[in-house]
């Protein structure tokens, strides 16, 4: 069974930076939200935590595409992470969490896991 989740509003469109990322804090930890206005979909969210360096920095990397795959390059040691799957292109065994993300009016919502009791509270 799918773990319970909820769609949290984390920021507004004005907070986004075109072609780049911002970081938000969620109950699931820090998440990087990328806004690529020239792609469809235009929003991507993966963990902000860079597993290679151990620092919370992925939102501050350079975005782009490699062989068509949308990616962000870690600003510390430059590994590329797929924005669609969270997989590290240089090392198959490394993977960061990805989060479904959508635009709801002016608000950006992330689907994050939550505890049982919070589901009922929502």
């Amino acid at each position: 069974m799918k773990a319970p989740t909820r769609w949290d509003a984390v920021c507004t469109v004005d907070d986004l930076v075109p072609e780049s990322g911002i970081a938000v804090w969620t109950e699931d930890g820090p998440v990087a939200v990328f806004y690529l206005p020239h792609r469809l979909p235009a929003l991507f969210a993966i963990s902000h935590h860079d597993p290679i360096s151990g620092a919370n920095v992925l939102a501050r990397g350079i975005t782009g595409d490699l062989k068509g795959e949308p990616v962000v390059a870690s600003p510390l040691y430059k590994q590329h992470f797929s924005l669609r799957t969270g997989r590290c292109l240089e090392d198959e065994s490394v993977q960061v969490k990805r989060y479904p993300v959508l635009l709801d009016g002016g608000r950006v919502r992330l689907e994050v896991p939550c505890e049982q009791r919070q589901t009922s509270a929502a």
Partner: protein
Amino acid sequence: MSKKTLIVIGNGMVGHHFLEQFVASPAAEDFRVVVFGEEKQLAYDRVHLSEYFSGSSHADLAMGTADWYTENRIELRLNEAVTRIDREGRKVTTDRGDYAYDELVLATGSYPFVPPIEGREHPHCFVYRTLEDLDAIRASARDGKSGVVIGGGLLGLEAANALKSLGLQAHVVEFAPRLMPVQLDAEGGSLLRHKIEELGVQVHTDKATTAIVEGQDARLRMNFSDDSHLDTDLIVFSAGIRPQDTLARACGLEIGERGGIVIDDHCTTSDRHIHAIGECALWDQRIFGLVAPGYTMARTLSSVLNNDEEAVFTGADMSTKLKLLGVDVGAIGDAHGQAPGARSIRFNDEQAGHYRRMVISEDGKRLLGAILVGDNSHYDTLLQYALNEITLPGNPETLILPESQGGAPALGPDALPETASICSCHNVTKGDICGAIDAGCSDLASVKVETKASTGCGGCSALLKNVVDSELEKRGVEVSKDICEHFPYSRQDLFHLVKVNGIRTFRTLISQYGKGHGCDICKPTVASILATCWNEHILTTDHVPLQDTNDTFMANMQKNGTYSIVPRVPGGEITPDKLIVLGEVAREYDLYTKITGGQRVDLFGATLSQLPEIWEKLIAAGFETGHAYGKSLRTVKSCVGNTWCRYGVQDSVGMAIFLENRYKGLRAPHKIKMAVSGCTRECAEAQSKDIGVIATENGWNLYVCGNGGMRPRHADLFATDLSDDGLIRTIDRVLMLYVRTADRLQRTSVWMENLEGGLDYLKEVVLEDSLGMGAELEAHMADIVSTYQCEWKTAVEDPEKRKRFREFVNEPEKKDPVQQWTVERDQRRPVLESA
């Protein structure tokens, strides 16, 4: 088994090259090696001896290091001349003792011939062969006005240039009716004379000196056989060289009629335990006064001592390509057409000052020799025809005609046979290069390392590059200059596209000239190009996403995701008040504080959201960004200079501050570092910088393309005694050319090494304005200088830009939990658990 002893007499170019070969060979195991050198210094590059006058030191010219000798267990005995060889007892004698040998190598070179002219012992008469000779000439020139070189050959003209560079009125006196009689014919010689006189060197041909006496207008007077005379303050003899065979003669080795130690094809003398290589050796009645044949002998002998019976010396090509006083001169093979039936084709353009002569075999099929004066661009092709006996085209004159008159383009690397010699210094053929490529070398640099090609005199570098490129292409290796999968262009191409088409955003560029969405390679590259071309603020919406995080947040990211702050401290000069502000800010935010290697202060450990506040305070106290994050000017290091230092001759601090303020903010392919020293003691270490300036009595000496870091490189002396304005104009041009033409992440050192034509080319473009783009480069720089803004100032004043500096946009107060701290030596530092 106890080791045998190998003694080498002479620590010159060839002797050193021999040792390099020998210690790397199996036989090295069996020998203890002892080397005697008469000179005080370790073997140095005599070919480039004249650079000693333009700023190179012995260390720059040295062929190896004392450490190298130690590491290879070679006993090096400098300043110890061998005075006797005892062949029976197999030992040599010096003023310090006797040394036994099993095998002996003579590499004693040659000595300058001084004709027996009365008065030649005068203290202001010199020769031109060693560093000591040059020291003596320099000292004598100090209070002289004019100097004469006796001998108008290749070395004589080089010596004349040296006298000129020492500020003397230079004369050349030649016995023959023309200059360089050995290499040139009458027409070539007269063109060369004309060009050299234009440069202010006076040439006197057909002059036999009869005596040197006390002068009237100067220290000395030379009397000539035609009863004329010439007054001068010093004289340099350059009337040819003689093989240094004194020891060999004395111990009864076979000597040639006109001198030289006779050797066979194995570089062995008439005593089979004694060998001779280099300029002292006579092979087939010939002496070779060039370094490349000596190197070939050295390699042959090393193989011979490894019992390789096939190793033979079979003679060497004596072709030469030179720039004498800035004039191209080339001579190939049988330049005078002495072979029976040889015919000549001449091309003479008096207007342009170009003379070319080809000597062709009787049947018209082979090129036997050639002479070039004024323009050496045909040299490589002609040499290949001659050396490799390539059949000439039906209309051979096309080889020396200008292309506009139907001349043929240069010989392509494809047309060369496998045996074609590409680098004669290191005896590398086209076949060797192909072999290296097949064994895995995939670029020019690795081919150079593998084969040593082009690491000697450097004359073959253009040809080598052509061969390597063409061979790589043949093997389907992409000699791709594309910066990444998004753009089929090099950085230089992109620069051109942006500039010419007035492109101002990445999006426009990629949609017109690239594909996809870009990546962390092309985006920062294009950002840097856009910044150089248009100099807009890097945090405008269009530019933000292009930058590396360090540029985006205008600070260097540290391993735990915090940032460091480096305010600019131009020239390293800082007031006590400003120092106090740095201290106060650091204390307030608990920033780890360290003095950097670039004479400024680095504050570490600021979080993203603290950056704008901290900068606000620093800007209020008069600080500016130090661009420690950018591919741009870092620091201009200075020494205290003549304001305080008893040795300083100029205001080095003032100049450093000026330069730092001028070039701060300039975006470049990589970072740029500079330094200014107040005198030759060089306390600011300017010779390790991209741009180094050293004060002189008369102005500034400029050094370029130095590098510390991973692959240190001494900067090259570029121009001397510049005025303030001259200095700045020259730096403007060098930097702008670098910014426009370098590859991404290429420091000036690597850029220059990869420029076709290297330093000489750079000098031509910058100092002689050979491309006519000097004014444009200066104007472009002036434009960048005038549009400078402190990026941090602009950023803190703009609320939109400040918005970027939120760690978590939805939780402004949230502290990043992975940033853990501890205290060490009274300061805060990160603890980072590995993930």
